[in-house]
């Protein structure tokens, strides 16, 4: 198996290849300290590489030895890899169902909707849910929250975090597995500590921050989700040169996609809606224009249907178009109230 296919960071991969280790077998027999010396990295990092390598080796199994081009990957491997990464739940079962289990890592998901529909709420919820420990079917990762609008409220995050822990302890009552340890780890304060919050006040800051993210994430490997709330706000302010805006936006989108791939993390972009002037009438679409709509793997639109909130999959390479109701409660995003009743009755 080639080094290029290992799920490790780009810099580690570069160091391995530079030191002459191009295949797994070339270094799998070495001791971590030997590897550390060769690559001039810390022992811990070397041990981590060895762990990943041996894990991948086992997964590789029969596929090993097929002479694939360096860096290429068979779809079969990709399927395995995808199954290895759990999805980030939204805490709303119906929403998870239409999303195929939740927000997927390695993908850019755009979520848009009118003001007050719950975009920020969903963002906060995801920043907390990404931290659900592996024992509970989560990722046990950390979150980066980039706030461009100033809508992130700490007390609301705390409220949702508390509800999340409560739900897990109910669930833990059934599992009973390492419950004490997990409870210790999942204190609301720890949850807030694991959300890296950035407040940006202009589009230059926003672009600079996103350029700097890969450095930040290589230092904080356990970041598993990047949320931008909202990607739109600063780009609607003062652009006379729309071509410049398009260039900046697509550059930013590429950076974010690369981040998602390189670090196997989920990128969630929140977007606003706007009225588009088509054939003399105004129609509702997500903001930032047509070229932007290519920038995301998945696109979810949140909308009101009567008095219920709905989510609709507008674009996705793997999911079928579907819609599902959800609600925003004091505990965060949950199943819609009418569905709750149905479940309770059963």
């Amino acid at each position, binding site marked *: 198996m080639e080094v290029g296919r290992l799920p490790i960071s780009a810099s580690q991969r570069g160091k391995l290849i530079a030191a002459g280790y191009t295949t797994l077998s070339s270094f799998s027999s070495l001791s971590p300290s030997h590897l550390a010396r060769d690559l001039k990295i810390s022992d811990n990092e070397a041990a981590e590489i060895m762990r990943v390598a041996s894990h991948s080796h086992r997964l590789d199994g029969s596929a090993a030895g097929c002479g694939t081009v360096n860096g290429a990957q068979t779809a079969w491997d990709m399927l395995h890899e995808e199954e290895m990464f759990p999805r980030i739940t939204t805490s709303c079962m119906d929403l998870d169902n239409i999303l195929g289990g939740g927000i997927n890592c390695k993908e850019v998901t755009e979520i848009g909707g*009118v*003001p*007050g529909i719950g975009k*920020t*709420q969903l963002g906060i919820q995801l920043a907390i849910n990404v931290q659900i420990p592996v024992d509970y079917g989560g990722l046990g990762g950390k979150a980066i929250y980039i706030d461009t*609008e*100033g*809508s*992130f*409220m*700490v*007390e*609301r*995050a*705390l409220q949702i975090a508390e509800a999340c822990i409560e739900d897990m302890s109910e669930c833990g009552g059934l599992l009973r597995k390492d419950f004490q340890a997990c409870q210790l780890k999942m204190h609301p*304060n720890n949850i*807030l*500590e694991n*959300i*890296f*919050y*950035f*407040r*940006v*006040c*202009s589009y230059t*800051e926003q672009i*600079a*921050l996103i350029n700097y993210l890969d450095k*930040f994430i290589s230092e904080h490997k356990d970041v598993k989700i990047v949320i931008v709330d909202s990607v*739109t*706000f*600063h780009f*609607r*302010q*003062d*652009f006379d040169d729309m071509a410049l805006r398009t260039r900046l936006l697509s550059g930013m989108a590429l950076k974010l996609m690369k981040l998602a791939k390189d670090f196997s993390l989920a990128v969630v972009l929140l977007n*606003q*809606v*706007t*009225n588009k*002037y088509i054939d003399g009438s*105004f129609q*509702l679409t997500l*903001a930032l224009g047509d070229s932007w709509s290519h920038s995301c793997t998945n696109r979810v639109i949140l909308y*009101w249907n*009567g*008095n219920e909130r709905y989510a609709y999959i507008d674009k996705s390479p793997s999911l079928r178009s579907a819609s599902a109701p959800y609600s925003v409660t*004091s505990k965060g995003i949950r199943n819609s109230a009418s569905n709750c009743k149905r479940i309770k009755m059963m």
Partner: protein
Amino acid sequence: MTPENLLHRLPSTQKCTFGCPVLDRCLGGGIPCNSITEIVAESGCGKTQLCLQLALSAQLPPSLGGLSASSLYIHTEFSFPSRRLHQLSHAFISSHPRIFNNDPCDRIFVHAVYSADQLFDIMPKIESFLENMNTQLPVKLIVIDSIAALFRSEFENTPIELKRRSALFFKISGKLKSLAKRFGLAVVVTNQVVDLMGHLEGMNGLKVGNLGSLVSSGRRVCPALGLAWANCVNSRLFLSRNDEVVGEENGSVDVSACGDGDFLPRQTRRQLHVVFAPHLPDSSCEFVIRREGVFGVER
């Protein structure tokens, strides 16, 4: 640009009290700092009353829910209601006699603005004012009363003008938000309403926020300035007045023992609704306007 550890900050966002426990409870402690709160209502609902009261209660110390701060009041519609402010400030002094030894009106800075471009142009002035102020209390509250008046007259209803208008929305709101972030300001803007025609729900058949349609004075209304502006504010509150409830005794009001009767029309029922807010559930609260100020009523 630097990562901020959330735990090193206050456990919750700082809030500016309304000076009334009932209203504060409905809004989770008052108007949040570092964000823009919009108060939407038709004329005569109490927008200006609430703003004046906020400008006074912001001067309270944090132990009483205030910000110990001065405020900047930008008015666009009428001449500044200084008589009403004086009236309110007397009530304010008498309810907090120990705190203030001079006139609280001294800590409210007033500025008139007559056009949207002017508002954007004075932003740098406001910034330097906030930076180099050597008053007793720092400014922590900016009120713009009202934002709608600036935008509703000047722009024509053509796509190009509308585009220019919404670009200006985002410019002004972006600037206000970065000021709010930098100085920990609470920003309050007021907005007018437009009547809603046809059977569609919300603006152009588009529902924004918790309430399907906003009703005031028995008419269906929606906030002015459209969808683009709705994206520019963090929270939106709606004040409604409805005259259909007649003959309600105001004796049930518990807030103040002072029995004044003829100041307010008795049959008006005023309500405050949370249309959307990142930190608040869909809630509403009834309130009355008296000589001493705006007070929530427990139902």
